[in-house]
């Protein structure tokens, strides 16, 4: 380093780094970016805000290229077993020149080529699955961020609500602000950040990939095992010898064991305990209470509230009653006294065990975010001179498509329409361009011979070793 570039001792002590990526030579304080917003000081190290990321094979460290830092330590040997991701690879748009990295490798003696680039996706969005039975809003309702429509509620799945966000209509079909807000929201979701979504005529939900949803300020801990009726079906045989009646409290369908098909099948005696709400089919009741944060997603804190009456013609003193919620988080054991009033009692161990089993069978509630996009248009031209052959090669599964190293699901039919779980992708995999559109890493891996056959830029292929040698990198 020349004197002009050297930092003073006090500057070094303050953690300032000198960026030499361009002639401005910014001095950057810790936690801040240079004048360009592309390079930053991260804990005293100069990093590209969007470094090229190398994924090692499982177990090995991830490596990021950083211009201007210490040269690569070489701890991955000659780069064997590493996989170059498109993260930070950069691209041109439209792709008027070959992809930035075309890397040849020889795993298990087979010559392979990985074409590494970053795609600019105007047609893209996310499909969000939110594990909750809480009411988020009506199907087709607009989903908003900062008042702008960024997507809509789509058909619910078992135990989960589904949102479809982004897409070309919201990105570029509406107002400029709608496009910018949509792009920001997609970028944040894809980079595993939390985004607050408001649903027309429904709830506010904070969504973050691989994290529990927060609905109207309440964090969802676990999915219920099923509705109250399903819970009866699942656990009836395990209860049979220990109880006279079980009521599974649930906001959707509350189940009553002795009236339920599951109880009848086991020849249980009617217990004469009637719950509130609207009877659907035997042993299945809707609307036993209001939705809320109490038992089974209802507003009930004392489960006896949902009992309408106890029929003296059917019930008997000493009747053993279990009340439990569909997550097993709430449970209570009662025995009827001589006046047929339920009295709290100690829950027998075998019953306790089944209650715990309900909880054990409830999976943690999560939000999952799948990035979905079409790798059409010119992106393919960075891979091959004859783009349709790439499409066919992907269709024929000769070419494997990954995003940031994560295998993508490629839809059948025309084009390369793909989906990938952003939670599995490396940190900060996504970027954006002001068009607005998202920038995502994408890698096509295929046999070298197949690559040549589909009109690929085979002569531009370099070895992984060359990539590592030609770029200043650091180990993460």
């Amino acid at each position, binding site marked *: 380093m020349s004197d002009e570039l050297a930092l003073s001792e006090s*500057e070094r002590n303050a953690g*300032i780094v000198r960026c030499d*990526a*361009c*002639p*401005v*030579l*910014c*001095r*950057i*304080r810790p936690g*801040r970016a*240079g*004048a*360009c*917003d592309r390079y930053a000081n991260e804990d005293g190290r100069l990093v590209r805000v969007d470094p090229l990321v190398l994924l090692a094979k499982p177990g090995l460290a991830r490596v990021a290229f950083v211009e201007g830092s210490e040269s690569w330590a070489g701890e991955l040997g000659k780069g064997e077993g590493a996989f170059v991701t498109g993260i930070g690879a950069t691209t*041109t*748009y*439209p792709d*008027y020149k070959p992809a930035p990295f075309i890397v040849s490798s020889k795993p298990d003696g087979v010559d392979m080529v990985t074409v590494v680039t970053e795609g600019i996706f105007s047609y893209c969005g996310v499909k969000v699955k939110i594990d909750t039975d809480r009411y988020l809003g009506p199907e087709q309702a607009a989903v908003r961020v900062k008042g702008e429509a960024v997507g809509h509620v789509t058909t619910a799945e078992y135990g989960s609500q589904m949102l479809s966000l982004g897409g070309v209509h919201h990105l570029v079909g509406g*107002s*400029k*602000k709608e496009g910018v807000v949509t792009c920001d929201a997609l970028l944040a979701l894809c980079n595993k950040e939390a985004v607050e979504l408001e649903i027309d005529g429904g709830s506010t939900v904070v969504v973050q990939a691989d994290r529990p949803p927060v609905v109207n300020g309440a964090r969802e801990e676990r999915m219920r095992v099923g509705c109250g009726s399903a819970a009866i079906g699942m656990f009836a045989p395990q209860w049979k010898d220990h109880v006279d009646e079980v009521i599974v409290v649930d906001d959707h369908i509350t189940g009553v064991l002795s009236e339920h098909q599951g109880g009848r099948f086991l020849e249980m005696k009617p217990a004469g305990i009637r719950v509130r709400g609207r009877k659907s089919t035997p042993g299945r009741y809707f609307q036993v209470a209001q939705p809320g944060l109490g038992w089974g997603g209802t507003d009930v804190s004392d489960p006896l509230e949902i009992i309408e009456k106890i029929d003296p013609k059917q019930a008997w003193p000493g009747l053993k009653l279990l009340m439990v919620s569909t997550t097993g988080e709430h449970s209570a054991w009662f025995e009827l006294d001589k006046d047929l009033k339920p009295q709290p009692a100690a829950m027998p161990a075998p019953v306790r065990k089944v209650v715990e089993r309900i909880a054990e069978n409830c999976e943690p509630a999560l939000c999952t975010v799948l990035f979905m996009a079409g790798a059409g248009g*010119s992106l393919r031209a960075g891979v091959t001179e004859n783009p349709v052959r790439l499409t066919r090669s992907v269709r024929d599964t000769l070419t494997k498509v990954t995003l940031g190293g994560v295998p993508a699901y490629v839809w059948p039919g025309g084009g390369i329409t793909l989906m990938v779980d952003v939670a599995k992708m490396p940190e900060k995999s996504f970027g954006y361009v002001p*068009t607005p559109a998202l920038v995502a890493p994408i890698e096509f891996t295929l046999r070298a011979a197949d690559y040549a056959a589909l009109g690929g830029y085979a002569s531009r292929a370099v070895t992984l070793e060359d990539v590592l040698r030609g770029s200043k990198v650091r180990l993460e």
Partner: protein
Amino acid sequence: MIAARFLDGRLHLQHGPIDLIIEAFGVREEVEAAYQQAIDRFGDILPTLVRELPTLRRPVRDAYPLLQGPVARRMAEAVWPHRAVFITPMAAVAGAVADEMLQAMLAGRTLDKAYVNDGGDIAIHLAPGHSLRAGIFAEALDGAVTLPHDLPVRGIATSGRGGRSFSLGIADSATVLARTAAAADAAATLIANAVDIDHPAIERRPARELDPDSDLGDLPVTVAVGELPRAAVNEALDRGLAEAQRLRRIGLIDSAAISLRGEWRLEHDRSLEIGPGVARRLHGGGQSRR
């Protein structure tokens, strides 16, 4: 350094902190030749500029700054009229780059119109009979301006808290129309600085604590603005408006539009349209609410 074309044909040039979007209108060959001239000129802009950075970062006082580079000289020219207050040539850097690049692409070319947009600071070329319509984007598409050939405005600049530069004030945006982009840039910086008030909800820190290279030295720059009462918003805006009026009276700017928390102040004769109705008109339809 990046030189790339967007799908719609616009040219994108980027080097370090300079990020330009360029578009030319006219006969195809002329447009392409103009783009090539822009690309050829661009490589030298940043290296030449940084050679004089120490001078460009110093406040301009009584002595006219002695500078050699063409962009640096444009910067000095643009800030010189403002030397009574604290200003450094850096206040005009983006606009000056835009002006210089526009001139480079126009040399020997015949174009109907063209613009160089340097992160919101825009240099404009208009042939007789042509006009350009530009939007102002603060929270949404909040305003619009039509620039006909006979209006002596060839520069638009916006300053405020949204950008990459530090501001001494609290304006969300201060947009200025002026003869050149550099002149607009310098004036927008000062007007945005003037939109200010003392209030506990405003957090400030010395610029050097954030960026050791900042031309603003130890001056307190705004890092966060919390909730402000309406009266404070109005008072801050009025101070900015007073500065805009002063600059217009002495002929340094054509017009200005200032925004803070959705409130606007306009200083102009006829050029600007601001308000919710504008966005609707630009998107084709709807009546003005004015």
